[in-house]
């Protein structure tokens, strides 16, 4: 009985932790795809930038700054944000900016970009996967009772997700930039007439979205792989979450991440992994057939 209870507890945590992973990886895309309507197929590669940043910093701290070994990870998250955001800025300026009115071309262009970036990672870091040495405080598990193990890296990803989600919410709702972003996305012409430099808003929004992907990538080094194609492991799930939630709604993204994660985690426990995935995807398709606009849709005058 105690065993089954502790398994139940760990399974509940597992569902929550899957939820946070889905949400964290979807957050950046929710901004880029959800708010801006840009289908960024290279989103996974921005995750990879974050992951490699963590790896490089881990190497550097081992070699040059041993005193930093247990804290480099927090720095890595910041650097990942800046770096991925910076690359995002560049990509927006050189590529995406010219394609805002041609969404299907964006799709192809960013897909091409993702292939180019993957091969660039491969040339720079080698085709083999690498592993960042994680600080000790991120390893192991918390044991509230002897038979329950709550992984610390899972808790960490949760905390980070909570923090970033709040930040994005606060940023979009209450800051000047956030207001401009929403204004631009809802009615570009009016926003521009009201004196908002929409081009600059686009750039910043895109960069922030990419930066968030970088942070997710850094966080995922604790639970996943770091290789040239690691990011592409997440891209399908990421789009799934954003589309299912209703592209323009952040609340929708959260709700959909929660729904998908819980369905997945629960079904996985009672059937095989592949069948669980089939069931989850079928449910999503069914719901999207009834509500093509996703779970939550922003009411805008068409």
């Amino acid at each position, binding site marked *: 009985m105690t*065993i*089954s209870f502790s*398994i139940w507890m*760990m*399974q509940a*945590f*597992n*569902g929550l*932790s*899957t939820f946070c992973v889905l949400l964290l990886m979807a957050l950046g895309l929710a901004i880029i*795809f*959800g708010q801006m*309507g840009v*289908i960024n197929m290279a989103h996974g590669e921005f995750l990879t930038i974050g992951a490699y940043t963590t790896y490089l910093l881990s190497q550097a701290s081992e070699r040059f700054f041993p005193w930093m070994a247990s804290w480099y990870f927090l720095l890595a998250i910041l650097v990942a944000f800046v770096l991925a955001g910076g690359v995002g800025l560049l990509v927006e300026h050189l590529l995406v900016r010219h394609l805002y*009115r041609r969404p*299907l071309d964006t*799709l192809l262009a960013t*897909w091409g970009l993702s292939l180019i970036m993957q091969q660039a990672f*491969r040339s720079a870091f*080698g085709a*083999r*996967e*690498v*592993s960042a*040495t994680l600080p000790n405080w991120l*390893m192991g598990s918390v*044991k509230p009772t002897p038979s329950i*193990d709550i*992984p*610390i890296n*899972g808790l960490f990803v949760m905390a980070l997700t909570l923090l970033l989600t709040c930040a994005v919410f606060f940023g979009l709702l209450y800051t000047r930039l956030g207001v401009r972003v929403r204004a631009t996305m809802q009615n*570009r*012409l009016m926003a521009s007439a009201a004196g908002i430099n929409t081009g600059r808003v686009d750039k910043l929004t895109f960069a922030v979205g990419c930066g968030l992907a970088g942070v997710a990538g850094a966080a995922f080094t*604790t*639970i*996943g*792989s*770091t*290789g*040239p*194609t*690691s990011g*592409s*492991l997440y*891209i*399908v799930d990421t*789009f799934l979450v954003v589309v299912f939630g209703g*592209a*323009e709604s952040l609340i929708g993204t959260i709700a959909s991440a929660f729904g998908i994660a819980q369905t*997945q*985690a629960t079904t996985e*426990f009672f059937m*095989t*992994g*592949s069948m*669980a*995935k089939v069931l989850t995807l079928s449910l999503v398709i069914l719901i999207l057939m009834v509500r093509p606009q996703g779970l939550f849709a922003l009411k*805008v*005058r*068409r």
Partner: protein
Amino acid sequence: MISKTLTSRARCPLTWLAILLGCVAVGCQNAKGSTPSPAPGAAAASAPAAAHALAITDTEVTVGQLHSATGTMAISETGSIQAERLAIDQINQGGGVLGHKIKIIQEDGASDWPTFAEKAKKLLVQDHTASVFGCWTSASRKAVLPVFEKENGLLYYPTFYEGLEQSKNVFYTGQEATQQILAGLDWLQKTKHAKTFFLIGSDYIWPRTSNKIARKHIENVLKGQVVGEEYYPLGHTQFGSLINKIKAQKPDAVYAIVVGGSNVSFYKQLKAAGVTAENQTLLTISVTEDELLGIGGENMVGFFAAMKYFQSLDNDNNKKFVAAFKDKYGPKSVIGDVTQAGYLGPWLWKAGVEKAQSFEVDKVVAASPGIELTTAPEGYVKIHPNHHLWSKLRVGQVQLDGQYKVVYESELIEPNPFPKGYQ
């Protein structure tokens, strides 16, 4: 009007997106080798057409190398490319084959199976290569097989694989499934007294076939019990539920065949959830030193792997091989099972050619069975008439530094690609 175009910008592409994502998902699956395999017997129908002369000059013989240098499989195939080049360099330094220096034409299969077939055809029809060293996934091998049989080429294939194949035109230098699986399970029962087993795999042909063999062996021969058998899609990254199932079942041993990026997630999450070598016996057949680089030794320390080769093997052949490899590719490079099997290819071909005293494919094939290689880093191998190798199985235990410590070594095992009672 304008607001309409603006909002539809976000809407209409959804359909297209769904289609494209679907393609990506399917592509990922194929990338790791889950394409349905054509019948191995399809070969018999095509008549060998040895009409074209091989590319041999008075001083040179041309061979081909066909691996993925780009794309998702580059992660695995890089080691094989390097090892085959090293072997060929060494052969050339030693005077070549029958007095001919070996010239390599390298083609990139780019992790795409039709590309593999196309490049195989190019290497055979246009370049007239005397032999080809290449392929890694079963899917790529199945794609080039009809080409090699039709054009009567010669392929040395380095990966351990699921068996159920035998072709006149292919030599398999890695282990087939029974060689890798049976002795490892026997060892688990004997030394770890394992009676209950939990089988795990990525969801495609190799893990499924291998686990099928493992289950038959556990149930019929070892009289043990399989308490769980689970498959996860390739690229799966969340293993929490699976880990909880393992905890609920408490099997004596976990038998794991997870591949690719999933591997890293699986072992990192196992460790985080408190499942370590201290409280759980785990044996894998899919983690070589290459994969350990990505997983990190600290995340797997104490777990076991069953393969025919580990970099840490303590014999003179291997010490020379490891030193030469590191000399050529840097001190940090690691060597896994498949890399070593790749290294055997050129040497086995050389031995076949020298025994036949000819580069002609038919003669090399006829001369090959029975050839022994005493200089192999894994010790000693011998070519079986079924074109696979006699080899030993070793069990290694993961160390903190990402290397294996060998804890068990079997006798030479006869290759048996079509095992009776295991299908």
